[in-house]
């Protein structure tokens, strides 16, 4: 059934669709970022595809590729029961993708998380700020070039001298 969905998208946006593949039962369509909102709105409104249920939105970081950040959106149709994966990728210099909160209200928090952990900006998003990390955090930790143990603790640590237990204040 999903091949029908990919076919419908290809027919509606012939120049937008870069590629599509079906792998292990999941149907994917790769599009240019420019008209992403219209494609998603088409998938939502078209009775044939009828993607009524917003499933997931995330980003995959491919440092080797020219267009580094790949935004992956999973949509799901309750009535027909099929799923589609819409992928679009943006370069590292201008990681900006149009926000689909106008079509799906739930994408709001998923986009804030993608911005928080990967640094991909979603233009048109009502309130794009960090959701999982605190405001003072510098950098986007899930990028492949962010070292895993680079910590930024917002509160001063008791200076723990090596081998010594942390200093206790005067016990009552």
């Amino acid at each position: 059934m999903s091949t029908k969905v990919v076919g419908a998208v290809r027919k509606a946006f012939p120049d937008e669709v870069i590629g599509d593949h079906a792998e292990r039962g999941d149907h994917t369509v790769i599009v240019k970022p420019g008209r992403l909102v219209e494609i998603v709105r088409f998938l939502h409104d078209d009775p044939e595809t009828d993607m009524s249920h917003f499933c997931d939105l995330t980003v995959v970081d491919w440092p080797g590729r020219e267009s580094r950040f790949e935004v992956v959106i999973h949509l799901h149709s309750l009535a027909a029961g099929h799923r589609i994966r819409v992928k679009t990728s943006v370069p590292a210099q201008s990681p900006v993708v149009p926000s689909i909160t106008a079509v799906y209200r739930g994408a709001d928090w998923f986009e804030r998380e993608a911005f928080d952990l990967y640094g991909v900006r979603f233009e048109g998003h009502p309130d794009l700020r960090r959701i999982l990390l605190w405001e003072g955090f510098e950098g986007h930790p899930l990028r492949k070039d962010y070292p895993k143990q680079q910590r930024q603790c917002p509160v001063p640590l008791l200076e723990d001298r090596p081998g010594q237990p942390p200093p206790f204040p005067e016990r009552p």
Partner: protein
Amino acid sequence: MAVGKSPPAGGSLLVTKVEEAIAWARKFSLFQYPFVTACCAMEFMSAMGPMYDLARFGAEAPRWSPRQADLIWVVGTVTNRQAPILRRIYNQMTEPKWVIAFGTCASVGGFYDNYATLQGIDKIIPVDVYIPGCPPRPEQVLDGLMLLMDRIAREKSSRMRALKELA
């Protein structure tokens, strides 16, 4: 007096000195502030629940304001975002106060050794008892509480010490 433990040094159950009476009173009426965040909450509920009852040790009454609590259970992972909140609540607790680090994540950060997690709450607040385990079994939790109660029994209350120095 915990079962199977030797009586505290220099004193039968009928304590004579006022200080040991205070320590004995504090030991058996710990009002707890459950600073619960992560998966250890499941075992904390079991420890508080009817099967491994924490009420037998007098430490069952949860107090949700640091003013009225004298024991803070830090249960589960404390992330870097949660650290200032834990530190603020610890500072707002009134003396005498004790801290129990419940589980490996609270004690040393557990296997979340990355940018997001505080590697052990003793980096920001002094801890009295560390309970290992991910999550620790309720029996371990009760044993940790008994360790704390022994420690309280041996502590001298500074008030009495101050009075002694004055006299």
